[in-house]
């Protein structure tokens, strides 16, 4: 019955569906950016790994530790012993200016100098092209996302930083993790090039198991020779992504809320005019003995269905337009670029549809009650 008359109100129904589709598309779209960013930042990182910075530093860029602190750290209890000693990598972290392929403008690309144990500490690293850099040489390997996003980072390319020329000898992946946005080289080569032989910025260590972390942390923080901050790698990565994540989510929520209000008004308008157009029909039904409830339900169902159609269109649109879209942005916390892919997850789509349903319910409720409360005689008299 409801749908038989739907055809008569194509215009306003279409407008309402359109409005709700817009809301859901934006809601899902914006959150997929935040999601994708967070994924890239936290995809990898093992709870068995710990990151050590100087106390007070909130990112690797700000941290600096003396060489001898590095030796104290690698002697700490709980670190896995590899063939060539403890699995601890003292690393340098700088940014270099390289042009983005998409725009040609300079971007801060992270360049990381790693210790020999780095590949054992972060065991997700996999060379997909070329080979690892040779220790002691001006060679680098490039993360897959960095190679795709920044110019001059293909295999065998060379680039100049300061007095040195660096050759790209390999490309690597890390299961979509943050390292894929970075360039890696040997810390022993990078140190002198940046006049940082005496210093390093962060140490990454592999612990025997995830539970060792607390005792390892206590051992380091209570050592009077050190002033360090010890963080589990997984926590470290999510800390580093909160700034941008929160910014996108706040702005996204703000926009989505405003839009939802706009869409509710649109839906209300549609449903009120639907009720107005069907006044006589509703009056007849009531005169035949139907009470208010079926009327309310039928109008609510119509409103919710319109919202669901809109929501599905919007969600589908967002999924089609945004899922997997490659982008890179600067993470102000690390002052360096992060490449990532927008991620439209099923849970995001479900949230979007729920959101649409809510709009439908609110948009249908008031008109439904108005229809149900209309005196039968007035309704029948309407043209």
């Amino acid at each position: 019955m409801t749908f038989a008359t739907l055809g008569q109100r194509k215009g306003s129904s279409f407008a309402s569906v359109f409005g709700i589709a817009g809301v859901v598309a934006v809601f899902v779209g914006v959150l997929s950016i935040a999601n994708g960013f967070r994924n890239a930042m936290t995809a990898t990182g093992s709870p068995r790994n710990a990151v050590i910075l100087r106390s007070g530093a909130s990112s690797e860029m700000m941290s600096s530790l003396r060489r001898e602190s590095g030796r104290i750290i690698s002697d700490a209890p709980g670190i896995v012993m590899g063939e060539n000693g403890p699995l601890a990598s003292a690393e340098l972290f700088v940014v270099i200016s390289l042009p983005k392929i998409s725009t040609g403008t300079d971007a801060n690309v992270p360049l990381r100098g790693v210790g020999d144990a780095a590949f054992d500490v972060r065991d997700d690293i996999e060379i997909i092209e070329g080979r690892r850099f040779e220790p002691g040489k001006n060679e680098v390997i490039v993360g897959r996302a960095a190679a795709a996003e920044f110019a001059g980072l293909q295999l065998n390319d060379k680039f100049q930083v300061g007095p040195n020329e660096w050759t790209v000898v390999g490309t690597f992946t890390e299961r979509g993790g943050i390292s894929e946005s970075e360039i890696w080289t040997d810390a022993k080569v990078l140190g002198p090039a940046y006049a940082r032989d005496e210093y390093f910025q962060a140490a990454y260590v592999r612990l025997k198991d995830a539970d060792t972390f607390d005792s390892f942390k206590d051992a380091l923080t209570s050592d009077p020779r050190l002033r360090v901050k010890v963080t589990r790698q997984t926590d470290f990565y999510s800390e580093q992504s909160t700034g941008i994540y929160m910014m996108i989510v706040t702005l996204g929520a703000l926009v989505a809320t405003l839009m939802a209000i706009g869409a509710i008004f649109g839906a209300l308008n549609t449903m009120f005019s639907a009720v107005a157009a069907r006044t006589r029909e509703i009056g007849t039904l009531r005169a035949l003995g139907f009470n208010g409830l079926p009327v309310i339900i039928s109008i609510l169902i119509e409103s919710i269905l319109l919202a669901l159609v809109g929501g599905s269109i919007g969600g589908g649109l967002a999924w089609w337009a945004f899922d997997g879209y490659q982008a890179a942005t600067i993470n102000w916390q690390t002052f360096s670029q992060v490449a990532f892919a927008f991620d439209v997850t099923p849970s995001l789509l479900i949230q979007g549809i729920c959101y649409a349903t809510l709009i439908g319910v609110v948009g249908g409720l008031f008109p439904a009650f108005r229809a149900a409360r209309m005196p039968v005689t007035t309704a029948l008299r309407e043209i």
Partner: protein
Amino acid sequence: MKFLPIIWANLKRRKLRTALTMASVLIAFLLFGYLCAIEEAMNAGINVAGADRLIVRHKASIIQMLPMSHKERIQQIPGVQSVAHATWFGGIYQEPGNLHAQIPVVPEEYFEIYDEFILPEEQMKKWKETKTGAVAGRTTADKFGWKIGDRIPIQATIYEKENGEQMWEFDLVGIYDSDKEGADTTQFFFRHDYFDEAQTFAEGMIGWYLVKVDDPDQADAIAKTIDEQFANSTFETKAETEAAFTRGFAAQIGNITAIMIAIMSAVFFTILLVAGNTIAQSVRERTEEIGVLKSLGFTNPQVLALVLGESCFLSTLAGGIGLGIAFWLISMGDPTGGNLPIFYLPTRDLVTGVICMILLGLLTGIAPAIQATRLKIADALRRAA
């Protein structure tokens, strides 16, 4: 104007619908306001960049520092009026979420180059007398409730003091304002001599130079000369105009901004379309009335004006309120709590907004208005029967 009562009466006939339509238009323009402010924030500073200012940084990246000795050599380049320097301190006030820039500078040099910052003379004098003195921008001072004379503790993240102490304390001697729309009044400046003596991390080094040139047309040529001066040294430079530097900085955020702006614009137009549809519909419903008006002797241009007047009245009233609310909310500050230091609604966007409202009114009104003028009186009256 004499038609205003008719327009008003027409809007009142279906109060609920008028209210809902106005509310959607209002929301659309509220969104528009935020859209403009966010875009402005992401491109922060480009519009206020001085054409006669250059920024000189280390060639490899801005995190690499430059020696203070560069200053004299830059000063000697013909066409250079004055040189100042700045460094990123990167400290934390109370909690890590409180983001605002703290920059050690030489007071008179820096404020001479950034002449849009206004600092009362006696405060500048006090600053020159107080080694631990600092000045804060109005926005930041208001946010944290700082008053002149307060002692401000800032926790260093990069620059420890000699004894490993990480807490720096500053005496707030001044608060600066700006007379330029969009200037960054969130920064916190303190004295470079205090900074350089107390820290051990990078003595004699600074972050970047600011150069004021005599003639803005020569800016690019002078930038080139500066870079040539230091070519092939350990500290090679990259000099560019402040606008180019800021644009580069904004470009680092990447296409995320563009995407968010595109999404929001799409929404803005969606809402307008939906609202526009309703406005048009409400005129269409009144065909018979227009017939009555015409039979009473209203001319076609008058009917056109009446219908367009109604739609424009509705869109500008609702849009104006929406943009007004946006302006008020935006002036209360950045919704992300400090991630966007420059957050305001530029005047030119207000103008764009008003143009959009009028356009909306005209576009939604024009089709039914033309229909109304073409209508034959007899047809119109017959429809009512």
